[in-house]
């Protein structure tokens, strides 16, 4: 770990250490830490069964999305890239939407788990499709200098738009009004009423995904010089792509499976981290995971505290923050400040 990466990691680790206990106390019911949990059993219940799993899940998902964003920007050599470009999130969402259709006809013990399982199947399908396309687009050894990454990304975008169209189709043909509202609610991700079950599903998968991305980190650094130079430095383009498909598929797929679609985290977070580091992709992945955890945790805290009649969906809140930020970023880039 180099000095620049340490500095960024420490900044966001400290921020996370402050935010995490705060998020346990904040909400519709404010918990006074000095009162002690033994005196009010309901406070203890809120803390252990509602707030703690929710906070842990925010950290897991935010961490995964942040790391995925840093890796994706490194891979595409583009600060405007987003993990959504691989089409994994829309495919996972399609899987989840399918579960609203098929969940009813499944046997009971499985039905309760149908949503995350179907979403993970969707993400897995997207990963399989990407691997298939990767095998073909990179299979030609004489492909040479470049363009294979751009081609591959376009394929990812096609998967995304296909999944989006099928999701829209599923919405228009929703079996009933309740299913329709469930689908629409779910497509705007949230962490409301999540339990330890969701944590146990997401945490191992996201961790495995972040490990895969960390293994890809040095090769992403070499890509700074372009595809041809990276290959001349000994980067195996196919191995790198496998790692990325696995890493982004696991982090994004698991996030969508338990929380729905939460956008903009992967896009924004690397920009918050980059100025604190030496700007090489490998220096961004760990701090971006920490910063992503901070962002999702803070945003989730905000939607809990904000005085709306129904809780603002986390996915919507992050897009509300994300879109103006993105615009500001574009304007800054035009001035050449990034």
């Amino acid at each position, binding site marked *: 770990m180099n000095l620049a990466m340490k500095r960024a990691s420490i900044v966001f680790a400290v921020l996370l250490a402050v935010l995490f206990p705060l998020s346990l106390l904040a909400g519709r019911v404010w918990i006074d830490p000095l009162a002690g949990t033994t005196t009010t059993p309901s406070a203890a219940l809120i803390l252990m069964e509602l707030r703690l799993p929710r906070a842990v899940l925010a950290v897991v998902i935010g961490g995964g999305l942040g790391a995925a964003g840093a890796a994706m920007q490194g891979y595409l050599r583009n600060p405007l890239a987003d993990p959504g470009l691989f089409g994994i999130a829309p495919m996972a969402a399609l899987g989840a939407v399918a579960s609203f259709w098929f969940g009813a006809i499944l046997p009971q013990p499985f039905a309760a788990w149908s949503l995350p399982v179907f979403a993970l199947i969707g993400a897995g399908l997207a990963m399989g499709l990407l691997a298939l396309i990767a095998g073909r687009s990179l299979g030609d050894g004489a492909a*040479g200098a470049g363009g294979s990454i751009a081609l591959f990304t376009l394929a990812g975008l096609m998967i995304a738009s296909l999944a989006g169209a099928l999701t829209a189709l599923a919405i228009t043909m929703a079996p009933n009004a309740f299913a329709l509202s469930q689908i629409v609610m779910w497509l705007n991700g949230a962490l409301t009423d999540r339990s330890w079950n969701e944590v146990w599903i997401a945490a191992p998968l996201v961790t495995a995904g972040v490990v895969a991305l960390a293994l890809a980190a040095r090769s992403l650094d*070499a890509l700074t010089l372009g595809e*041809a130079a990276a290959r001349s430095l000994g980067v*195996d383009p196919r191995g790198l792509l496998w790692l990325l498909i696995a890493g982004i598929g696991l982090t994004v797929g698991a996030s969508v499976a338990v929380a729905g679609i939460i956008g903009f985290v992967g896009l924004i977070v690397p920009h918050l981290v980059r100025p604190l580091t030496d700007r090489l992709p490998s220096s961004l992945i760990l701090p971006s995971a920490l910063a992503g955890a901070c962002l999702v945790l803070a945003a989730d805290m905000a939607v809990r505290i904000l005085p709306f009649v129904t809780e603002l969906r986390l996915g919507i809140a992050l897009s509300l923050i994300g879109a103006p930020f993105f615009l500001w970023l574009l304007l800054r880039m035009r001035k050449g400040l990034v």
Partner: protein
Amino acid sequence: MKTLSAQNISVLRGGKRVLHSLTTRLEPGTVTAICGPNGAGKSSLVMALAGLLEPKEGRVLLADAPLCGISARERACAQGYLPQGSDIAWNVSVQSLVGLGRYPHRDGASEQGRGAVESALAAAQLEELRDRPVSSLSGGERARALLARVLAGQPDWILADEPLAALDLAHQLKMIAHFRSCAGAGQGVVLVLHDLAIAMNHADRVIVLSEGEKIAEGDPVTALEPSIIARAWGVEADWLGAKGARALITRN
């Protein structure tokens, strides 16, 4: 020392044959210039020699071992490839950029890796600029930083695709001086050059390509004689001046 040779290589790109059974043998400690009109296959030859394009027929040998049989990492330690253009995706510092040259050695953080980066920075006269972000460099400084990245890998062979493009005269000469000192230190240097006068005055050997075929190879005076220039470029030209300071005069 490690020679680099091509035996009857034919290379296809996008289904099109860009090199036709080309054979050459390059010696370390020399600067070889690859010249030829646009589309003659210069970049393809360099990429094939660097192991980035696999020949359809024939093979490339590094120290008499087939390049395709060497691991990517071993090849990357032995060969430094400097692609055309100066594309750097992130606004990293000069030192970080040069440090990327240690990628195949996996020792960027060790004593040895840092020493190699230091001597590359010194060789390219970049010590003062080490902390500067690459976006703040001039074209010449940027080219030197990218060269230093290759030098940091301490390769036996340096293969550069048009390293002088987009540089002014003074920086061209400075870069050539860097390449000459690499050859002086025993490294093999292969450069794609557009400027025939630079090839004539500064290279030890010249390979002239035309439409994917080698039409001349040898010392600059024979390989770049007017009849070859007429054949490859379709330009009537003559050399003026004395050895080491020749100028090309065209008559069209």
